[in-house]
């Protein structure tokens, strides 16, 4: 190979995202470049450090490509949080497209100016997995839960729950030992974390979605710029809007098997009616207004971000 690139990410190799998105992407790049690009995959943080450092690692050239969550470093990529606000998400494919388009317009030259962004996507609908059934907002009162993002932490605090901070691998032990009563993640992750074995209730929100989280596949800028034009073209052909849409769609598709597994175990899937969801939406609205005010105060035009994001999501949601 003319060029060898190192891809670093936090999940084990056999997890869904590496198996169904990253490794196929690597193979495609290698094939389409006629073997001139080789990508070495280092899963499970094999090159050292912790997940929040992935972004610095790709900027500093410790890795050439990383897959990570902008939310791992709160305060740094604040604009991406607009897609994580409660009940803005529709389906992962549409929101990923919206995320890419808004990213192109506002983030690539600002938030992400130090990296070459290859893909921006979100996971499938996030939901609540709990020991005791949670139907209405008041059922959250005093529930200790691990929330995945800065925004969801704020939201669950507003809703009366007690968010407890811990890294995601600590969730199974914390659930089994009663350190937490619930966790908030998409179905896709529940398989690997054995969540369905540890809780019996899963609260979903009908056609609405409580939240999602944003991802980014990023490349070191100098490494990208140093590629000959024909190899740049191979990377370009496999990044951007279409790739982001594919990745989001794939992650949502990966929700199906763990969801079925939970049902096969006889777990209760509580699917809220539109009336019930309305109560949640009303209660969560404060989180959104708080966020907009916070962004406005930071000079990031929260109001504009939210309206642009909602318009783009509406445009892509069929």
């Amino acid at each position, binding site marked *: 190979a003319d060029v060898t690139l190192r891809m670093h990410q936090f999940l084990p190799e056999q997890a869904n995202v590496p198996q169904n998105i990253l490794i196929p992407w690597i193979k495609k790049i290698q094939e389409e470049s006629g073997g001139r690009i080789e990508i070495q995959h280092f899963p499970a943080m094999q090159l050292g450090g912790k997940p929040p450092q992935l972004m610095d690692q790709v900027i500093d050239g410790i890795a050439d490509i990383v897959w990570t969550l902008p939310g791992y470093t709160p305060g740094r990529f604040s604009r991406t949080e607009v897609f994580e606000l409660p009940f803005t998400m529709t389906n992962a494919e549409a929101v990923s497209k919206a995320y890419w388009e808004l990213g192109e317009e506002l983030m690539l030259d600002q938030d992400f100016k130090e990296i070459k962004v290859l893909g921006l996507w979100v996971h499938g609908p996030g939901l609540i997995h709990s020991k005791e059934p949670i139907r209405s907002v008041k059922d959250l009162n005093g529930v200790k839960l691990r929330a995945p993002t800065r925004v969801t932490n704020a939201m669950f605090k507003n809703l009366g729950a*007690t968010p407890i901070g811990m890294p995601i691998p600590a969730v199974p032990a914390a659930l089994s030992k009663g350190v937490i009563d619930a966790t908030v993640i998409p179905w896709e992750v529940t398989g690997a974390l054995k969540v369905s074995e540890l809780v019996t209730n899963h609260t979903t929100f009908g056609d609405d979605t409580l939240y999602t989280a944003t991802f980014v596949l990023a490349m070191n800028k100098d490494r990208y710029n140093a590629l000959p034009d024909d190899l740049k073209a191979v990377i370009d052909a496999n990044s951007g809007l279409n790739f982001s849409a594919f990745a989001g769609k794939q992650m949502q598709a990966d929700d199906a098997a763990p969801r079925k597994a939970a049902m096969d175990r006889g777990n209760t899937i509580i699917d809220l009616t539109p009336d019930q969801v309305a109560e949640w939406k009303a209660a969560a609205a404060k989180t959104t207004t708080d966020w907009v005010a916070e962004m406005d105060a930071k000079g990031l035009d929260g109001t504009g971000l939210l309206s642009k994001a909602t318009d783009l999501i509406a445009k892509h949601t069929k």
Partner: protein
Amino acid sequence: MLNWVERVARAMAVIGGIVLIALILLTCMSVLGRGLNTFGHSSLLEGLSQGLADLLLATGVSPINGDFEIVEAGVAFAIFSFLPICQLYAAHATVDIFTSTLSPAKNRLIKAFWEVVLTAIILLITWRLYAGMESKMSYGETTFLLQFPVWWAYAASFVSAVVASFVGLYCAYARVAEIITGRHYLPYTEGAVH
């Protein structure tokens, strides 16, 4: 000079230890708060007396918000604060299986050599920690729950790392001086005594 360096190293370790103890107490309070909070919401207490349950919850008992983040930031500071005393007391793990057969003079030379290298590495670590702090500062990165700037934690650790660098420089100087003058300047030249 040794007296003075040792006092600084010990003071640093004690400060780190007090931070560690504070983290231990904080974690215990968080556990207690979580336990009482769960008890207040439990059907047992609500069954016994709803009023008592409400009263307990009204006191606001709950786990300490962001305890996890405080522990992570605090323990990093504590461990950086422990480095100077570890170096001064030559407490780093070594294998003496081959060098024990060499002459005392050669052993002194070997020890001085590694002391210098170790000090160089600690200086390097300190410098890079400063760079890390600068980058966290420029990005405005915060923690998850408490949302305090991450660079604060780096800055606290950096202070300890600077002390570790000074102690390291003194140790390196003393070991080299030991070769030249043949006298002992450091407290524990044959490994750690605890």
